[in-house]
């Protein structure tokens, strides 16, 4: 790896829809996937990220720049993450979790996963099936039995079917 002292190194990332992004190496190596490429000396030219589209990559880079500008202060980092995710819709969150997984960024993964879980709270089984495209593989009898099993724990959980 050709480390030049003084001048910050910039990397060029390419999304799967051929958009190019410049990002400071210090921010980009939050991704373990990118860091490994840099360390292996494969980051000379353009780094192709085959599993991330341009829209999502732009968002991830905003996050990389934002979080790496914050000094080691977990409180501030957390509030940055909360703010960063606050305006993302459910679909974007899905893209983000896949991108964070591909880029191997555990802090972003956890933040996005927690945010998705937060959206899911108080949602009905029907909502979850619809949104996640999950097929109900229970027979009606099995489903009724599973519902019955933990009925006593549901007190206070109000689900919101319309949402």
């Amino acid at each position, binding site marked *: 790896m050709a480390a030049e002292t003084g001048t910050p190194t910039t990397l060029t990332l390419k999304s799967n829809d051929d958009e190019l992004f410049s990002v400071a190496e210090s921010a980009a190596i939050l991704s373990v996937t990118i860091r490994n490429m840099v360390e292996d000396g494969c980051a000379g030219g353009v780094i192709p990220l085959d599993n991330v589209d341009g829209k999502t990559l732009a968002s991830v880079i905003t996050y990389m720049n934002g979080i790496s500008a914050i000094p080691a202060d977990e409180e501030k980092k957390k509030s940055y993450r909360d703010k960063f995710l606050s305006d993302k819709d459910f679909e974007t969150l899905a893209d983000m979790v896949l991108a964070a997984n591909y880029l191997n960024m555990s802090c972003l993964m956890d933040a996005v*996963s927690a945010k998705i879980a937060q959206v899911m*709270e108080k949602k009905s089984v029907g909502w979850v099936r619809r949104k996640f495209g999950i097929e109900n593989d229970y027979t009606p009898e099995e489903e009724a039995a599973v519902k019955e099993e933990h009925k*006593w724990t549901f007190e*206070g959980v109000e689900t919101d079917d319309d949402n």
Partner: protein
Amino acid sequence: MDMDPRIWSGLPDHLLERVLSFLPLKTFLSLRSTCKHFKSILSSPLFISKHSSSLSSSSSSSLSSFILLSHPQFPHNKYPLYNTVTNSWCPVSLSIPSSTLKCSGNTTLLTSSNGLLCFSAPDSYSFVVCNLLTKSIRHVKYPFRPFAFELLTLVAVPTAPNNNNNNIAAYKLFMLSSSAAAAALVYDSEAGAWREYAAGGSAALNGTRHQNGVFFDGRVFFATSRPFSVACFDLEMGSWERSALGLLPPGGGGDEVAFARLVSDGDRRMYLVGGVGVSGISRSVKVWEYIYDREDGTNRWAEVETLPEMLCKKFLSVCYHNYEHVYCFWHKGLICVCCYTWPEILYYKVCRRTWHWLPKCPSLPHKWSCGFRWFSFNPQLYANV
């Protein structure tokens, strides 16, 4: 907004599991009927480790804790639950079908400890230890046949209560065999085996058979009255000890202890609820706390509370001065004082130093009188059977 479910259905299982592991346990349980995969996640290692390390955060504490009522006349295996977080009777009773316990014949709920319930299943010569949240069970075969036992005590305490890990990794079942001359028997879930200890020391119990033992400081304690004494069995050493520590100041006007029941939070505190009076008739009910002074190695019972007169009158008339029917247990900061013949519980809230009656279960018919048995039930995902 119109979302595209294709994105989400393309989410690999391990990512979905990671997302679901962030859900509060209660929410997750209500979503288990989504599909078979969701149901299986409950026992996945990631989910378990995520939820076991967070003692104070959303996960385990979001589940309520309950006082469970058992009565022989309820439909088989139905147990009304009183939610001690919302202070109300749950609209849905807990139902434990025999398929859950995987045994045929009658089962009787005998005791509980943290997330675990212990049943006897005499037809299959075993005890059944069960975690209802994870639906995991263990059949513990009687050590020999025929087997008659008493003072069964289930000891399931967190492995390390002082750090953030409240896993119940192991438990012990203590009992006296009434067939083998009152030998003490201990089943250790880690070893998966029974041990038998010589009968000698159990004579210290002085014939007391009122209440299961309480676990405190590595030992199982029993109280006897008239004369009052406390005996304990050391689970590590397998030995009995007896203490004749007095409850009442000497020469206290002829007063004596008419009945004595122990309660322990399983961790740091042990209390004693006792009736004080003459000729075996209680005039008042008091609570003492066991104090051990590590510096000079002395111990004593310190009186902490006297039951207010009106409550005391009601309680003593409820049990008809027949203290055989009185038993106590600990539930989440409450000392519960019960009587087999009365459908309400008298409880003492330790932190506020207040007494209350737990209201009668609404689904309980008026004419039922005898056989009310209560258990503390704190469902926990991580109590291993």
